[in-house]
């Protein structure tokens, strides 16, 4: 365990594709990296009882989520040989087609980055106190439910 302060992971609204490109670009100075693994969650325009999801509105118990994410990060770093790891999650409204989750792991050899990315995504979905409200076209909403590991 380190005594580092939990890093903020939350961004207001969608995560821009250009931001992801820039994050990748910034790693080109780290010449010990051989592999990057990236997971992106995108808001789907599901149709539920003839109503179409146009956006998801995310809320979180932020203080607890950042503490928990800090724990996850420490545990992933102790388990895998990573050079770095970045996590961003949206809060507020993210329209269908936009990115709401960005997990980015890097390592010298591919297995560590790939496995760490997948495990981090699973843990984020299972352990971070974040809730998505699926907003329907016109009006109405439904609270999103995560199915684990699918």
């Amino acid at each position, binding site marked *: 365990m380190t005594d580092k302060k939990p890093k903020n992971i939350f961004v207001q609204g969608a995560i821009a594709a250009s931001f992801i490109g820039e994050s990748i670009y910034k790693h080109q100075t780290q010449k010990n990296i051989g592999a990057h693994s990236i997971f992106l*969650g995108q808001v789907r325009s599901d149709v539920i009882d003839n109503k179409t999801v146009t956006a998801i509105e*995310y*809320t*979180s*118990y932020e*203080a*607890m989520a950042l*503490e928990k994410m800090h724990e996850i990060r420490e545990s992933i770093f102790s388990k895998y040989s990573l050079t770095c790891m970045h996590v961003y*999650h949206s809060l507020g409204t993210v329209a269908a087609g936009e990115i*709401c*989750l960005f997990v980015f792991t890097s390592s010298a050899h591919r297995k560590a980055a790939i496995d760490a990315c997948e495990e981090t*995504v699973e843990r*984020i*979905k*299972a*352990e*971070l*106190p*974040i*809730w*998505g*409200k699926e907003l329907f076209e016109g009006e109405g909403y439904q*609270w*999103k*439910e*995560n199915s684990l590991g699918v």
Partner: protein
Amino acid sequence: MTQITIIAFGQLTDITGNRFTIDNIIDTNTLKIQLEEQYPLLKNRKYAIAVDEQIVSENTLLNASSTVALLPPFSGG
């Protein structure tokens, strides 16, 4: 008399709003009973109770400075 502030999240806010208070509770077991009296709709809902940002699975004592949160199943990502 101890008054505890409770914060709620996700679908539970449709029932309780974001924040409310409950009087005269000493631990999470009595909280749960009182909660479901005050908000009968909660009885059919799945939720965890967090005290000071930790989910509690056993009965836990509360005091006026406790931060109590009601957490329905997570749906981030």
